[in-house]
Protein backbone atom coordinates (compact mmCIF):
# COMPACT_ATOMS: atom_id res chain seq x y z
CA UNK A 1 0.00 0.00 0.00
CA UNK A 2 3.02 2.15 0.07
CA UNK A 3 2.57 5.30 -1.91
CA UNK A 4 5.34 6.45 -4.19
CA UNK A 5 7.40 9.53 -3.42
CA UNK A 6 5.98 11.36 -6.38
CA UNK A 7 2.51 11.40 -4.84
CA UNK A 8 3.86 12.68 -1.54
CA UNK A 9 5.81 15.43 -3.33
CA UNK A 10 2.66 16.37 -5.23
CA UNK A 11 0.75 16.59 -1.97
CA UNK A 12 3.50 18.70 -0.40
CA UNK A 13 3.01 21.17 -3.23
CA UNK A 14 -0.76 21.11 -2.70
CA UNK A 15 -0.26 21.74 1.02
CA UNK A 16 1.74 24.83 0.10
CA UNK A 17 -1.05 26.05 -2.14
CA UNK A 18 -3.47 25.56 0.75
CA UNK A 19 -1.15 27.52 3.07
CA UNK A 20 -0.87 30.39 0.64
CA UNK A 21 -4.64 30.47 0.21
CA UNK A 22 -4.97 30.63 3.98
CA UNK A 23 -2.50 33.55 4.05
CA UNK A 24 -4.61 35.28 1.40
CA UNK A 25 -7.73 34.74 3.53
CA UNK A 26 -5.96 36.22 6.57
CA UNK A 27 -4.67 39.14 4.46
CA UNK A 28 -8.20 40.26 3.73
CA UNK A 29 -9.86 39.44 7.06
CA UNK A 30 -6.94 40.54 9.26
CA UNK A 31 -8.12 37.96 11.76
CA UNK A 32 -8.88 34.30 12.18
CA UNK A 33 -8.44 31.09 14.13
CA UNK A 34 -4.91 30.67 12.85
CA UNK A 35 -3.58 28.09 15.32
CA UNK A 36 -6.12 25.35 14.72
CA UNK A 37 -6.24 26.14 11.02
CA UNK A 38 -2.51 25.61 10.51
CA UNK A 39 -2.63 22.37 12.49
CA UNK A 40 -5.04 20.73 10.01
CA UNK A 41 -3.44 21.89 6.74
CA UNK A 42 -1.92 18.46 6.01
CA UNK A 43 -5.09 16.66 7.11
CA UNK A 44 -7.30 18.56 4.67
CA UNK A 45 -4.64 18.26 1.94
CA UNK A 46 -4.48 14.48 2.30
CA UNK A 47 -8.27 14.29 2.34
CA UNK A 48 -9.21 16.59 -0.52
CA UNK A 49 -6.27 16.06 -2.88
CA UNK A 50 -5.82 12.33 -2.47
CA UNK A 51 -8.32 10.42 -0.44
CA UNK A 52 -11.88 11.74 -0.78
CA UNK A 53 -14.30 10.54 -3.43
CA UNK A 54 -15.39 13.80 -5.05
CA UNK A 55 -16.02 15.38 -8.44
CA UNK A 56 -14.22 18.56 -9.46
CA UNK A 57 -16.67 21.46 -9.44
CA UNK A 58 -19.65 19.36 -8.31
CA UNK A 59 -20.24 19.89 -4.58
CA UNK A 60 -23.74 18.37 -4.75
CA UNK A 61 -22.76 14.98 -6.17
CA UNK A 62 -24.87 12.57 -4.09
CA UNK A 63 -22.15 9.94 -3.85
CA UNK A 64 -19.39 12.29 -2.73
CA UNK A 65 -17.69 11.56 0.57
CA UNK A 66 -19.01 13.84 3.31
CA UNK A 67 -16.71 16.02 5.40
CA UNK A 68 -18.03 17.29 8.71
CA UNK A 69 -15.79 19.96 10.21
CA UNK A 70 -16.82 19.75 13.83
CA UNK A 71 -14.18 22.33 14.82
CA UNK A 72 -15.91 24.77 12.52
CA UNK A 73 -13.88 27.78 13.68
CA UNK A 74 -10.98 26.37 11.62
CA UNK A 75 -13.01 26.62 8.42
CA UNK A 76 -10.21 28.72 6.87
CA UNK A 77 -8.36 25.49 6.07
CA UNK A 78 -11.35 24.06 4.16
CA UNK A 79 -12.07 27.42 2.51
CA UNK A 80 -8.50 27.39 1.21
CA UNK A 81 -9.14 24.06 -0.51
CA UNK A 82 -12.54 24.79 -2.08
CA UNK A 83 -11.30 27.01 -4.97
CA UNK A 84 -8.70 24.34 -5.82
CA UNK A 85 -11.40 21.70 -6.36
CA UNK A 86 -13.64 24.04 -8.33
CA UNK A 87 -16.38 24.48 -5.74
CA UNK A 88 -16.08 28.28 -5.40
CA UNK A 89 -14.24 30.97 -7.38
CA UNK A 90 -10.86 31.93 -5.92
CA UNK A 91 -12.01 35.56 -5.46
CA UNK A 92 -14.05 34.30 -2.51
CA UNK A 93 -10.77 33.96 -0.61
CA UNK A 94 -10.71 37.76 -0.24
CA UNK A 95 -14.17 37.92 1.33
CA UNK A 96 -13.76 35.99 4.59
CA UNK A 97 -15.76 37.55 7.45
CA UNK A 98 -17.61 39.82 4.99
CA UNK A 99 -21.34 40.47 4.77
CA UNK A 100 -23.02 37.96 2.44
CA UNK A 101 -19.71 36.24 1.74
CA UNK A 102 -19.70 32.51 0.97
CA UNK A 103 -16.90 32.37 3.54
CA UNK A 104 -18.64 33.03 6.85
CA UNK A 105 -16.81 33.32 10.17
CA UNK A 106 -17.73 29.75 11.03
CA UNK A 107 -18.40 27.00 8.47
CA UNK A 108 -21.93 27.41 7.09
CA UNK A 109 -23.57 24.81 4.86
CA UNK A 110 -26.20 27.28 3.69
CA UNK A 111 -23.63 29.78 2.37
CA UNK A 112 -20.73 27.67 1.11
CA UNK A 113 -20.82 24.99 -1.60
CA UNK A 114 -18.88 22.00 -0.32
CA UNK A 115 -19.49 22.59 3.37
CA UNK A 116 -21.57 19.71 4.71
CA UNK A 117 -22.13 20.97 8.23
CA UNK A 118 -22.84 24.35 9.80
CA UNK A 119 -20.85 24.36 13.00
CA UNK A 120 -19.51 26.77 15.55
CA UNK A 121 -21.01 25.45 18.75
CA UNK A 122 -18.44 22.79 19.55
CA UNK A 123 -19.01 19.12 20.26
CA UNK A 124 -21.88 18.51 17.83
CA UNK A 125 -20.21 17.64 14.53
CA UNK A 126 -19.51 14.02 15.41
CA UNK A 127 -23.22 13.46 16.18
CA UNK A 128 -24.06 14.96 12.79
CA UNK A 129 -21.53 12.68 11.11
CA UNK A 130 -23.09 9.73 12.94
CA UNK A 131 -26.50 10.75 11.56
CA UNK A 132 -25.09 10.93 8.02
CA UNK A 133 -23.37 7.57 8.41
CA UNK A 134 -26.55 5.92 9.74
CA UNK A 135 -28.38 7.43 6.75
CA UNK A 136 -25.92 5.71 4.41
CA UNK A 137 -26.51 2.39 6.19
CA UNK A 138 -30.31 2.73 5.95
CA UNK A 139 -30.15 3.75 2.27
CA UNK A 140 -27.93 0.77 1.48
CA UNK A 141 -30.24 -1.55 3.44
CA UNK A 142 -33.26 -0.23 1.52
CA UNK A 143 -31.52 -0.51 -1.88
CA UNK A 144 -28.79 -3.15 -1.63
CA UNK A 145 -26.04 -2.80 -4.24
CA UNK A 146 -26.23 -5.24 -7.15
CA UNK A 147 -24.10 -8.36 -6.86
CA UNK A 148 -20.84 -7.55 -8.61
CA UNK A 149 -19.54 -9.51 -11.55
CA UNK A 150 -18.35 -12.26 -11.53
CA UNK A 151 -21.26 -13.57 -9.52
CA UNK A 152 -19.78 -16.96 -8.72
CA UNK A 153 -17.18 -15.48 -6.37
CA UNK A 154 -17.87 -16.09 -2.67
CA UNK A 155 -19.15 -12.95 -1.00
CA UNK A 156 -16.13 -12.52 1.30
CA UNK A 157 -13.86 -12.18 -1.71
CA UNK A 158 -15.88 -9.30 -3.14
CA UNK A 159 -14.82 -5.84 -2.02
CA UNK A 160 -17.80 -3.68 -1.14
CA UNK A 161 -17.68 0.05 -0.67
CA UNK A 162 -20.27 2.22 1.02
CA UNK A 163 -22.26 4.68 -1.08
CA UNK A 164 -20.22 7.37 0.63
CA UNK A 165 -17.99 7.66 3.67
CA UNK A 166 -18.29 10.32 6.33
CA UNK A 167 -15.16 12.07 7.60
CA UNK A 168 -15.35 14.16 10.73
CA UNK A 169 -12.55 16.49 11.83
CA UNK A 170 -12.78 16.89 15.59
CA UNK A 171 -10.71 19.23 17.75
CA UNK A 172 -9.05 17.89 20.87
CA UNK A 173 -10.48 20.65 23.05
CA UNK A 174 -14.04 19.89 22.01
CA UNK A 175 -13.59 16.34 23.28
CA UNK A 176 -14.37 17.93 26.66
CA UNK A 177 -17.97 18.16 25.50
CA UNK A 178 -20.16 15.33 26.75
CA UNK A 179 -21.97 15.12 23.44
CA UNK A 180 -18.79 13.92 21.69
CA UNK A 181 -18.86 10.83 23.90
CA UNK A 182 -22.57 10.35 23.32
CA UNK A 183 -21.79 10.29 19.61
CA UNK A 184 -18.85 7.92 20.11
CA UNK A 185 -21.13 5.44 21.91
CA UNK A 186 -23.80 5.82 19.24
CA UNK A 187 -21.33 5.23 16.38
CA UNK A 188 -20.08 2.02 17.97
CA UNK A 189 -23.65 0.82 18.61
CA UNK A 190 -24.58 1.25 14.95
CA UNK A 191 -21.29 -0.31 13.73
CA UNK A 192 -20.50 2.71 11.55
CA UNK A 193 -17.50 1.42 9.62
CA UNK A 194 -18.32 4.11 7.04
CA UNK A 195 -17.37 6.82 9.55
CA UNK A 196 -13.81 8.06 10.02
CA UNK A 197 -13.15 10.61 12.74
CA UNK A 198 -9.87 12.51 12.63
CA UNK A 199 -8.87 14.08 15.93
CA UNK A 200 -6.69 17.16 15.53
CA UNK A 201 -4.71 16.53 18.70
CA UNK A 202 -2.75 19.77 18.87
CA UNK A 203 -2.82 19.70 22.68
CA UNK A 204 -3.87 23.30 23.17
CA UNK A 205 -7.27 24.88 23.53
CA UNK A 206 -8.12 28.54 24.08
CA UNK A 207 -7.27 28.75 27.79
CA UNK A 208 -4.06 26.68 27.62
CA UNK A 209 -2.74 23.11 27.36
CA UNK A 210 -5.53 20.52 27.11
CA UNK A 211 -3.83 18.40 29.77
CA UNK A 212 -4.26 21.30 32.21
CA UNK A 213 -7.71 22.43 31.08
CA UNK A 214 -9.21 18.93 31.07
CA UNK A 215 -6.88 15.95 30.70
CA UNK A 216 -7.74 13.82 27.66
CA UNK A 217 -4.95 11.21 27.72
CA UNK A 218 -5.03 8.34 27.03
CA UNK A 219 -7.28 9.27 24.13
CA UNK A 220 -6.52 6.14 22.09
CA UNK A 221 -7.43 3.79 24.92
CA UNK A 222 -10.64 5.69 25.53
CA UNK A 223 -11.72 5.32 21.91
CA UNK A 224 -10.73 1.62 21.94
CA UNK A 225 -12.73 1.05 25.12
CA UNK A 226 -15.75 2.55 23.36
CA UNK A 227 -15.38 -0.01 20.56
CA UNK A 228 -13.59 2.03 17.89
CA UNK A 229 -10.65 1.14 15.66
CA UNK A 230 -7.89 3.61 16.50
CA UNK A 231 -4.60 4.61 14.90
CA UNK A 232 -2.23 7.30 16.10
CA UNK A 233 -0.30 9.22 13.47
CA UNK A 234 1.82 12.32 12.96
CA UNK A 235 -0.74 14.77 11.61
CA UNK A 236 1.88 16.76 9.71
CA UNK A 237 3.37 13.77 7.89
CA UNK A 238 1.53 13.41 4.61
CA UNK A 239 2.80 9.89 4.00
CA UNK A 240 1.51 8.68 7.37
CA UNK A 241 -1.77 10.49 6.76
CA UNK A 242 -2.52 9.00 3.35
CA UNK A 243 -1.43 5.53 4.51
CA UNK A 244 -3.66 5.71 7.57
CA UNK A 245 -6.64 7.10 5.65
CA UNK A 246 -6.35 4.38 3.01
CA UNK A 247 -5.97 1.69 5.65
CA UNK A 248 -8.96 2.95 7.63
CA UNK A 249 -11.22 3.01 4.60
CA UNK A 250 -10.03 -0.41 3.40
CA UNK A 251 -11.16 -1.87 6.71
CA UNK A 252 -14.76 -1.14 5.69
CA UNK A 253 -16.87 -4.11 6.59
CA UNK A 254 -15.39 -4.79 10.01
CA UNK A 255 -18.27 -3.03 11.76
CA UNK A 256 -16.08 -0.58 13.65
CA UNK A 257 -16.03 3.20 13.39
CA UNK A 258 -12.53 4.48 12.71
CA UNK A 259 -10.55 7.10 14.58
CA UNK A 260 -7.27 8.63 13.49
CA UNK A 261 -5.61 10.50 16.31
CA UNK A 262 -3.44 13.01 14.44
CA UNK A 263 -0.74 14.47 16.68
CA UNK A 264 -0.31 18.02 15.51
CA UNK A 265 1.20 21.34 16.56
CA UNK A 266 -1.01 24.35 17.04
CA UNK A 267 -0.03 27.07 14.55
CA UNK A 268 2.20 24.55 12.74
CA UNK A 269 4.83 26.04 10.44
CA UNK A 270 4.54 29.58 11.74
CA UNK A 271 7.07 30.21 14.54
CA UNK A 272 5.07 33.05 16.11
CA UNK A 273 1.85 31.08 16.33
CA UNK A 274 3.67 27.91 17.38
CA UNK A 275 5.40 29.67 20.29
CA UNK A 276 2.29 31.42 21.50
CA UNK A 277 -0.10 28.50 20.75
CA UNK A 278 -2.28 31.17 19.17
CA UNK A 279 -5.97 30.32 19.08
CA UNK A 280 -7.32 33.48 17.50
CA UNK A 281 -5.30 36.44 16.25
CA UNK A 282 -6.19 39.79 14.80
CA UNK A 283 -4.32 42.70 13.24
CA UNK A 284 -0.61 42.67 14.04
CA UNK A 285 -0.65 39.06 15.30
CA UNK A 286 -2.06 37.85 12.00
CA UNK A 287 0.09 40.08 9.77
CA UNK A 288 3.35 39.02 11.44
CA UNK A 289 2.43 35.34 11.28
CA UNK A 290 1.45 35.57 7.63
CA UNK A 291 4.77 37.32 6.85
CA UNK A 292 6.70 34.54 8.59
CA UNK A 293 4.69 31.95 6.67
CA UNK A 294 5.31 33.57 3.30
CA UNK A 295 9.05 33.67 4.02
CA UNK A 296 9.09 30.03 5.03
CA UNK A 297 6.95 28.38 2.37
CA UNK A 298 7.82 28.80 -1.28
CA UNK A 299 4.98 30.11 -3.38
CA UNK A 300 3.88 27.49 -5.89
Amino acid at each position, binding site marked *: MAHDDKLIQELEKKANIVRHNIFRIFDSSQGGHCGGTMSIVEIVTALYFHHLKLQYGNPDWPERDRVVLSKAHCCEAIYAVLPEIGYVPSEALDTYYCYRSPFQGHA*DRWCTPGIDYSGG*SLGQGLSF*AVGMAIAEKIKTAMNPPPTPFPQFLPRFLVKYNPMYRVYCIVGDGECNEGQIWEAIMCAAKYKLDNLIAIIDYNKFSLDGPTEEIMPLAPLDEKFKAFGWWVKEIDGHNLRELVDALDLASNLYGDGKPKCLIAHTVKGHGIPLWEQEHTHLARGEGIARGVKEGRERYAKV
Partner: protein
Amino acid sequence: MPKYNKYVKIGPPSPAAMTAMNDAMIKVAQKNDKVVAVLSDMGFPAIGWFKENAPERIIECGIAEANAAVVAAGLAAEGFVPFLNSFVFAAIGRAYNSIRQSILVDRFNVKIFGREGAWGETGISHNHVEGIGMTRVMPNLVILNPADAVESAKAIIAMADYIGPVFYRQEMSPPMMSIFTEDYPFDIGKAYAIKDGKDATIIATGYMVTEAIRAIDLLEKDGLDVGIINMSTLKPLDEEAIIKAAEETGAIVTAENGSIIGGLGEGVAAVLAENMPASLVRVGIEDEFSQSGQITPERDDLKIHFALGAEDLAVSVKECIAKRDSLKSRKRSR
Protein backbone atom coordinates in the same frame (compact mmCIF):
# COMPACT_ATOMS: atom_id res chain seq x y z
CA MET B 1 -76.48 26.29 23.74
CA PRO B 2 -73.80 28.47 22.15
CA LYS B 3 -73.78 28.52 18.36
CA TYR B 4 -70.54 27.06 17.02
CA ASN B 5 -69.05 27.51 13.59
CA LYS B 6 -68.70 24.91 10.86
CA TYR B 7 -66.54 21.82 11.49
CA VAL B 8 -67.18 22.03 15.25
CA LYS B 9 -69.07 19.31 17.09
CA ILE B 10 -68.41 19.31 20.82
CA GLY B 11 -68.12 15.91 22.47
CA PRO B 12 -67.18 14.83 25.98
CA PRO B 13 -63.53 14.74 27.13
CA SER B 14 -61.64 11.56 26.28
CA PRO B 15 -58.03 10.41 26.13
CA ALA B 16 -58.42 9.89 22.36
CA ALA B 17 -55.67 12.37 21.43
CA MET B 18 -52.96 9.83 22.23
CA THR B 19 -54.39 7.08 20.00
CA ALA B 20 -55.03 9.63 17.27
CA MET B 21 -51.35 10.56 17.40
CA ASN B 22 -50.42 6.92 17.14
CA ASP B 23 -52.64 6.26 14.13
CA ALA B 24 -51.52 9.42 12.34
CA MET B 25 -47.88 8.53 12.89
CA ILE B 26 -48.47 5.10 11.32
CA LYS B 27 -50.10 6.76 8.31
CA VAL B 28 -47.16 9.13 7.94
CA ALA B 29 -44.61 6.33 8.23
CA GLN B 30 -46.49 4.17 5.72
CA LYS B 31 -46.79 6.97 3.22
CA ASN B 32 -43.15 8.04 3.29
CA ASP B 33 -40.41 5.47 3.78
CA LYS B 34 -37.96 8.27 4.57
CA VAL B 35 -39.71 8.88 7.89
CA VAL B 36 -37.47 7.58 10.69
CA ALA B 37 -38.00 7.46 14.45
CA VAL B 38 -35.07 8.84 16.47
CA LEU B 39 -35.57 7.77 20.07
CA SER B 40 -33.96 8.93 23.28
CA ASP B 41 -35.28 6.20 25.59
CA MET B 42 -38.62 7.91 26.04
CA GLY B 43 -40.87 5.83 23.77
CA PHE B 44 -42.40 6.87 20.48
CA PRO B 45 -45.89 7.05 18.99
CA ALA B 46 -46.47 4.05 16.72
CA ILE B 47 -43.28 2.37 17.89
CA GLY B 48 -45.08 -0.98 17.65
CA TRP B 49 -45.68 -0.43 13.94
CA PHE B 50 -42.04 0.55 13.37
CA LYS B 51 -40.76 -2.50 15.25
CA GLU B 52 -42.94 -4.81 13.23
CA ASN B 53 -42.69 -3.23 9.79
CA ALA B 54 -39.53 -1.15 9.57
CA PRO B 55 -37.08 -1.87 12.39
CA GLU B 56 -34.24 -0.36 10.34
CA ARG B 57 -36.05 2.99 10.61
CA ILE B 58 -35.75 3.09 14.42
CA ILE B 59 -32.64 4.85 15.69
CA GLU B 60 -32.38 4.54 19.45
CA CYS B 61 -29.84 7.02 20.87
CA GLY B 62 -30.43 6.28 24.54
CA ILE B 63 -30.70 8.94 27.20
CA ALA B 64 -28.72 11.49 25.21
CA GLU B 65 -31.14 14.03 23.78
CA ALA B 66 -28.53 16.44 22.43
CA ASN B 67 -26.91 13.64 20.45
CA ALA B 68 -30.31 12.42 19.25
CA ALA B 69 -31.18 15.89 17.93
CA VAL B 70 -27.95 16.22 15.95
CA VAL B 71 -28.07 12.63 14.67
CA ALA B 72 -31.55 13.52 13.41
CA ALA B 73 -30.07 16.57 11.69
CA GLY B 74 -27.47 14.36 9.98
CA LEU B 75 -30.22 12.02 8.79
CA ALA B 76 -32.27 14.96 7.52
CA ALA B 77 -29.23 16.22 5.61
CA GLU B 78 -29.34 12.93 3.70
CA GLY B 79 -33.02 13.26 2.82
CA PHE B 80 -34.67 11.44 5.71
CA VAL B 81 -37.52 12.88 7.78
CA PRO B 82 -36.58 12.16 11.41
CA PHE B 83 -39.11 12.43 14.24
CA LEU B 84 -37.85 12.90 17.81
CA ASN B 85 -39.93 12.29 20.90
CA SER B 86 -39.44 13.17 24.57
CA PHE B 87 -40.53 15.53 27.29
CA VAL B 88 -39.92 19.17 26.41
CA PHE B 89 -37.44 19.64 29.26
CA ALA B 90 -35.25 16.99 27.60
CA ALA B 91 -36.12 17.07 23.89
CA ILE B 92 -35.87 20.87 23.73
CA GLY B 93 -34.42 22.05 27.05
CA ARG B 94 -31.54 19.62 27.27
CA ALA B 95 -30.81 19.79 23.54
CA TYR B 96 -31.52 23.51 23.08
CA ASN B 97 -28.18 24.52 21.61
CA SER B 98 -27.91 21.36 19.52
CA ILE B 99 -31.30 22.09 17.98
CA ARG B 100 -30.33 25.68 17.32
CA GLN B 101 -26.92 24.99 15.80
CA SER B 102 -27.47 21.73 13.99
CA ILE B 103 -31.16 21.74 13.03
CA LEU B 104 -32.49 25.29 12.80
CA VAL B 105 -29.49 27.07 11.27
CA ASP B 106 -29.88 24.93 8.16
CA ARG B 107 -33.67 24.41 8.44
CA PHE B 108 -33.27 20.66 8.47
CA ASN B 109 -36.48 18.71 8.10
CA VAL B 110 -36.60 17.40 11.69
CA LYS B 111 -39.85 17.00 13.66
CA ILE B 112 -39.89 17.11 17.44
CA PHE B 113 -42.67 15.77 19.67
CA GLY B 114 -42.40 17.33 23.13
CA ARG B 115 -44.65 16.61 26.08
CA GLU B 116 -45.22 19.38 28.58
CA GLY B 117 -47.82 21.27 30.59
CA ALA B 118 -48.79 22.30 34.08
CA TRP B 119 -50.58 19.06 34.95
CA GLY B 120 -49.07 15.77 36.02
CA GLU B 121 -48.02 13.55 38.86
CA THR B 122 -44.35 13.72 37.92
CA GLY B 123 -43.61 17.03 39.62
CA ILE B 124 -41.49 20.08 38.97
CA SER B 125 -39.01 18.43 36.59
CA HIS B 126 -41.47 16.96 34.09
CA ASN B 127 -44.37 19.41 34.47
CA HIS B 128 -42.43 21.84 32.33
CA VAL B 129 -44.18 25.13 31.52
CA GLU B 130 -41.57 27.22 29.66
CA GLY B 131 -41.65 25.37 26.33
CA ILE B 132 -43.63 27.86 24.25
CA GLY B 133 -41.50 30.85 25.24
CA MET B 134 -38.31 28.85 24.85
CA THR B 135 -39.14 27.85 21.30
CA ARG B 136 -40.95 30.94 20.05
CA VAL B 137 -37.64 32.84 19.99
CA MET B 138 -36.01 30.21 17.77
CA PRO B 139 -35.88 31.24 14.09
CA ASN B 140 -37.01 28.76 11.40
CA LEU B 141 -39.10 26.71 13.85
CA VAL B 142 -42.83 26.06 13.46
CA ILE B 143 -44.73 25.33 16.70
CA LEU B 144 -47.96 23.34 16.71
CA ASN B 145 -50.21 22.79 19.73
CA PRO B 146 -53.43 20.99 18.76
CA ALA B 147 -56.65 21.14 20.75
CA ASP B 148 -58.21 17.70 20.25
CA ALA B 149 -57.77 14.26 18.74
CA VAL B 150 -58.92 15.20 15.23
CA GLU B 151 -56.61 18.19 15.14
CA SER B 152 -53.70 16.13 16.54
CA ALA B 153 -53.95 13.67 13.69
CA LYS B 154 -54.24 16.41 11.09
CA ALA B 155 -51.33 18.33 12.61
CA ILE B 156 -49.05 15.28 12.43
CA ILE B 157 -49.90 14.67 8.78
CA ALA B 158 -49.42 18.39 8.01
CA MET B 159 -46.08 18.57 9.79
CA ALA B 160 -44.82 15.52 7.91
CA ASP B 161 -45.76 17.18 4.61
CA TYR B 162 -44.24 20.52 5.60
CA ILE B 163 -40.53 20.79 4.74
CA GLY B 164 -38.65 22.27 7.68
CA PRO B 165 -38.28 21.90 11.44
CA VAL B 166 -41.48 21.58 13.49
CA PHE B 167 -42.03 21.35 17.23
CA TYR B 168 -45.26 19.54 18.09
CA ARG B 169 -46.28 20.39 21.65
CA GLN B 170 -48.14 17.52 23.16
CA GLU B 171 -49.88 18.72 26.30
CA MET B 172 -49.90 17.15 29.72
CA SER B 173 -53.36 18.08 30.90
CA PRO B 174 -56.74 16.62 31.86
CA PRO B 175 -58.44 14.91 28.88
CA MET B 176 -59.43 17.28 26.06
CA MET B 177 -62.96 17.51 24.71
CA SER B 178 -63.59 16.30 21.21
CA ILE B 179 -64.06 19.53 19.28
CA PHE B 180 -63.68 19.14 15.53
CA THR B 181 -65.44 17.05 12.89
CA GLU B 182 -63.39 14.79 10.64
CA ASP B 183 -63.60 17.21 7.70
CA TYR B 184 -62.06 20.09 9.68
CA PRO B 185 -59.47 21.79 7.46
CA PHE B 186 -56.21 22.15 9.39
CA ASP B 187 -53.60 24.49 8.02
CA ILE B 188 -50.23 25.34 9.58
CA GLY B 189 -50.29 29.04 10.50
CA LYS B 190 -54.08 29.37 10.34
CA ALA B 191 -56.13 29.94 13.49
CA TYR B 192 -59.71 28.69 13.44
CA ALA B 193 -62.64 30.55 15.00
CA ILE B 194 -64.59 27.86 16.84
CA LYS B 195 -67.27 30.36 17.76
CA ASP B 196 -67.83 34.01 16.94
CA GLY B 197 -68.73 36.43 19.73
CA LYS B 198 -69.72 40.06 20.17
CA ASP B 199 -68.58 40.86 23.71
CA ALA B 200 -65.11 39.35 23.91
CA THR B 201 -62.80 36.76 22.31
CA ILE B 202 -60.84 34.01 24.03
CA ILE B 203 -57.72 33.08 22.06
CA ALA B 204 -56.81 29.67 23.43
CA THR B 205 -54.34 26.95 22.52
CA GLY B 206 -54.22 23.22 23.22
CA TYR B 207 -56.07 21.97 26.27
CA MET B 208 -57.20 25.47 27.24
CA VAL B 209 -59.61 25.41 24.27
CA THR B 210 -61.53 22.78 26.24
CA GLU B 211 -61.69 25.11 29.29
CA ALA B 212 -62.69 28.01 27.02
CA ILE B 213 -65.63 25.99 25.67
CA ARG B 214 -66.76 25.35 29.24
CA ALA B 215 -66.23 29.04 30.08
CA ILE B 216 -68.45 30.38 27.30
CA ASP B 217 -71.31 28.21 28.62
CA LEU B 218 -70.94 29.95 31.98
CA LEU B 219 -70.65 33.38 30.37
CA GLU B 220 -73.73 32.81 28.23
CA LYS B 221 -75.74 32.34 31.39
CA ASP B 222 -74.62 35.84 32.37
CA GLY B 223 -75.79 37.16 29.01
CA LEU B 224 -72.34 37.51 27.41
CA ASP B 225 -71.61 36.39 23.87
CA VAL B 226 -67.96 35.40 23.80
CA GLY B 227 -66.01 33.99 20.85
CA ILE B 228 -63.19 31.41 20.80
CA ILE B 229 -60.22 31.28 18.47
CA ASN B 230 -58.21 28.06 18.44
CA MET B 231 -54.59 29.16 18.00
CA SER B 232 -53.10 25.76 17.25
CA THR B 233 -50.06 27.18 15.44
CA LEU B 234 -48.06 29.14 18.01
CA LYS B 235 -45.48 30.11 15.44
CA PRO B 236 -46.07 31.70 13.02
CA LEU B 237 -49.00 33.33 14.83
CA ASP B 238 -52.07 34.07 12.73
CA GLU B 239 -51.88 37.84 13.11
CA GLU B 240 -54.89 38.51 10.88
CA ALA B 241 -57.16 36.44 13.10
CA ILE B 242 -55.93 38.30 16.19
CA ILE B 243 -56.43 41.73 14.61
CA LYS B 244 -59.87 40.76 13.33
CA ALA B 245 -60.93 39.63 16.81
CA ALA B 246 -59.63 42.86 18.34
CA GLU B 247 -61.60 44.85 15.78
CA GLU B 248 -64.79 42.93 16.46
CA THR B 249 -64.78 42.76 20.26
CA GLY B 250 -61.95 44.92 21.57
CA ALA B 251 -61.55 42.52 24.52
CA ILE B 252 -59.10 39.63 24.17
CA VAL B 253 -58.34 36.92 26.72
CA THR B 254 -55.51 34.52 25.94
CA ALA B 255 -55.41 31.08 27.55
CA GLU B 256 -52.51 28.65 27.59
CA ASN B 257 -51.28 25.67 29.58
CA GLY B 258 -47.85 27.18 30.11
CA SER B 259 -45.94 30.23 31.28
CA ILE B 260 -47.43 33.55 30.18
CA ILE B 261 -43.89 34.91 29.85
CA GLY B 262 -42.89 34.44 26.24
CA GLY B 263 -46.00 32.38 25.59
CA LEU B 264 -49.13 32.81 23.50
CA GLY B 265 -50.26 35.76 25.62
CA GLU B 266 -47.12 37.72 24.90
CA GLY B 267 -47.29 36.93 21.22
CA VAL B 268 -50.87 38.16 21.03
CA ALA B 269 -49.99 41.24 23.13
CA ALA B 270 -47.28 42.22 20.66
CA VAL B 271 -49.62 41.83 17.67
CA LEU B 272 -52.30 43.91 19.40
CA ALA B 273 -49.93 46.64 20.57
CA GLU B 274 -48.49 47.08 17.09
CA ASN B 275 -51.69 46.81 15.07
CA MET B 276 -54.93 47.17 16.99
CA PRO B 277 -54.60 48.07 20.69
CA ALA B 278 -57.32 46.30 22.68
CA SER B 279 -58.07 45.31 26.22
CA LEU B 280 -56.09 42.14 27.03
CA VAL B 281 -55.91 39.63 29.89
CA ARG B 282 -53.42 36.77 29.76
CA VAL B 283 -54.44 33.52 31.45
CA GLY B 284 -51.71 30.97 32.03
CA ILE B 285 -49.04 30.23 34.55
CA GLU B 286 -47.48 33.20 36.27
CA ASP B 287 -43.72 33.28 36.77
CA GLU B 288 -43.42 29.98 38.65
CA PHE B 289 -42.76 26.25 38.25
CA SER B 290 -45.40 23.56 38.44
CA GLN B 291 -45.55 20.64 40.91
CA SER B 292 -47.17 17.25 41.37
CA GLY B 293 -50.94 16.99 41.36
CA GLN B 294 -53.46 14.26 40.67
CA ILE B 295 -56.57 14.65 38.61
CA THR B 296 -59.63 12.80 39.93
CA PRO B 297 -63.28 13.31 39.01
CA GLU B 298 -63.73 15.00 42.39
CA ARG B 299 -60.84 17.39 42.42
CA ASP B 300 -58.02 18.86 40.35
CA ASP B 301 -55.60 20.66 42.68
CA LEU B 302 -53.38 22.09 39.97
CA LYS B 303 -56.30 23.61 38.11
CA ILE B 304 -57.20 25.46 41.30
CA HIS B 305 -53.57 26.29 42.12
CA PHE B 306 -52.91 27.90 38.75
CA ALA B 307 -56.46 29.26 38.28
CA LEU B 308 -56.76 27.65 34.86
CA GLY B 309 -60.35 26.36 35.12
CA ALA B 310 -63.40 27.53 33.18
CA GLU B 311 -64.64 29.58 36.16
CA ASP B 312 -61.33 31.45 36.37
CA LEU B 313 -61.36 31.99 32.64
CA ALA B 314 -64.91 33.41 32.87
CA VAL B 315 -63.79 35.83 35.58
CA SER B 316 -60.87 36.92 33.38
CA VAL B 317 -63.21 37.52 30.45
CA LYS B 318 -65.44 39.74 32.60
CA GLU B 319 -62.40 41.58 33.89
CA CYS B 320 -61.24 42.13 30.33
CA ILE B 321 -64.63 43.46 29.24
CA ALA B 322 -64.70 45.80 32.27
CA LYS B 323 -61.22 47.06 31.39
CA ARG B 324 -62.29 47.75 27.82
CA ASP B 325 -65.41 49.61 28.94
CA SER B 326 -63.58 51.73 31.50
CA LEU B 327 -61.00 52.64 28.85
CA LYS B 328 -63.80 53.65 26.48
CA SER B 329 -65.52 55.84 29.10
CA ARG B 330 -62.20 57.45 30.03
CA LYS B 331 -61.63 58.34 26.38
CA ARG B 332 -65.11 59.79 26.15
CA SER B 333 -64.70 61.94 29.28
CA ARG B 334 -61.49 63.52 27.94
